[in-house]
């Protein structure tokens, strides 16, 4: 098991290095970061001045070494062009809002997805199963931004129950963004749990349990539900990544002050150092999350513990 954990750690370090290389090259891909930051309507002299000021006229490898040194030793991504402050603290400040939103969305997805998936499978081919399957299919097909806007239309504009944007109204303000972000994951959980339960229902041990006269309630909980949950646990791990990506769109729609919205704004503002810092931070969150999930699996699933 230790062996496996060491392997995962090495992989995570590798990925972080790759992310650093990628983040460095985002602004150098077009050849001229100075022009990328200032746009085409700035005079050539100004672009040239900015280029020398930021050191973009030095050889690429020197810049890259400098970039790495700054990040690894000082956590320095440069000064945000718009806010005139170091870029990294601006990003770090936004992390709690993003985590809050993702966690709320995952909770909703689980609270809705697990009972619905279970009911759908146990009531197979009944009306409720058909309705749930259609809803899950639609949920997997609807774009996040559209679900968000429709929720705003109904619950903020027409019914005026929830605020349409911001994070200033306590728990009320997180309801719409969290539902928006959760719909895809909830739909995926319903569909996966349904097929997983249907698989389990055909297993010999379920038939045996029923034949022994164990009450149906206990068969469902102990024999069917527990054994059907393994693929769902795997899916939940994967869905965290999807949620982190979806947060970019959700935060933009609801003006939710998280890292995702910051990335989009930084791009609009051509704030290259802030783009680098925020892309790095969100990628890092993703890597750390995946690593933690891997570690949790080794404790949950004895097969991994023994084999790897």
């Amino acid at each position, binding site marked *: 098991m230790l062996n496996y954990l060491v392997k995962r750690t090495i992989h995570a370090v590798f990925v972080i290095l790759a992310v650093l290389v990628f983040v460095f090259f985002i602004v150098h891909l077009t050849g001229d970061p100075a022009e990328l930051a200032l746009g085409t309507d700035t005079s050539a002299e100004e672009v040239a001045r900015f280029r020398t000021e930021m050191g973009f006229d030095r050889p690429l490898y020197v810049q890259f070494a400098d970039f790495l040194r700054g990040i690894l030793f000082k956590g320095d991504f440069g000064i945000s062009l718009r806010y005139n402050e170091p870029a990294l603290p601006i990003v770090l400040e936004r992390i709690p809002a993003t985590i809050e939103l993702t966690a709320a969305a995952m909770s909703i997805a689980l609270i809705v997805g697990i009972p619905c998936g279970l009911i759908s499978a146990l009531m197979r081919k009944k009306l409720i199963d058909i309705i749930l399957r259609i809803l899950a*299919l639609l949920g997997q097909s609807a*774009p996040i931004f559209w679900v968000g806007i429709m929720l705003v239309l109904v619950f903020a504009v027409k019914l005026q129950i929830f605020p349409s944007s911001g994070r200033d109204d306590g728990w009320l303000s997180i309801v719409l963004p969290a539902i928006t972000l959760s719909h895809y994951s909830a739909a995926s959980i319903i569909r996966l749990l349904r097929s997983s339960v249907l698989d389990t229902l055909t297993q010999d041990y379920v038939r045996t349990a029923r034949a022994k006269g164990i009450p149906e309630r206990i068969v469902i909980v102990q024999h069917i539900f527990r054994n059907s949950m393994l693929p769902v646990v795997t899916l939940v791990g994967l869905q965290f990544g999807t949620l982190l990506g979806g947060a970019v769109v959700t935060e933009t729609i609801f003006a939710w002050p998280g890292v995702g919205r910051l990335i989009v704004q930084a791009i*609009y503002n051509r704030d290259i150092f802030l783009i680098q810092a925020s892309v790095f931070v969100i990628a890092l969150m*993703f890597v750390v999350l995946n690593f933690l999930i891997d570690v949790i699996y080794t404790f949950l699933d004895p097969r991994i513990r023994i084999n790897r």
Partner: protein
Amino acid sequence: MKKRSDKYRLLKHLFDSKEAFIGALLILLFVSTALLAHFISPHDPLHQDLTKRLLPPFWQTGGDPSFLLGTDALGRDILSRIIYGGRVTLFVGFICASIACVVGSLLGIIGGYLGGKVDNFIMRIADIQLSFPFIILAIALVAAFGPNLFNIVIILGLTSWVRFARVVRADTMLLREQDYVAAAVAIGASRVRIVLRHILPNVVSSIIVVGTLEVPRLILMEATLSFLGLGIQPPLPSWGSMASDGRVYISAAWWLCTFPGLAIMLVVLSVNLLGDWLRDELDVRI
């Protein structure tokens, strides 16, 4: 001869499955409206008429029957824009998936057939890419290269190879050990010939199934990028940017945002329905 009867059987099963049939019918509908957009669309999608701005759909009071789904803030016909926008959406979805399919399958076959260091290297890159949220990757690249149709297609196409590569690699590794491949090696067939004649035909069904998963994902991705203003640029109508434009008028004109979003959902749904069915029918495990 056997091939043909297989195809007929597949077609017959398509008619037997309600979901798949609806999916196929919807896809056919969307593809034909996109192809025939010029003849079907009631108005020019770019024609502005400020005297007819923000007209509601025809069934609401104030609606104009010649603008069935209403007009936008510049007086352009929503229905016509949706019909033309479908061209962009379907084009991006299928072209990107094709690029991803070619790149991914090639790398998958190379990795699976050769094994060893080459395979390790390809799979390591795949792992690293999967450890990175895809939408962030796409957004960052679009921000660097600039948003336009060509860049979107190239970026989304080239970054979606991983799933194709993984599935094709796994299939290739199994096929490589088959007796008929050993026989082909024994009679001196070249590697290229073995791959083209003996391996490629047997991974096609897996490629198709992965394709039905990737097309909806790519369509959603393009719509999302366009919604964020980082995708297809005006005046070219795209469903994502139409929804984004309509967001400003959400309290006054619900139809601006609702219909393009519905169109996206229906296209994605139809490919998903067909994909689910194909996965069962071709018995491919992803």
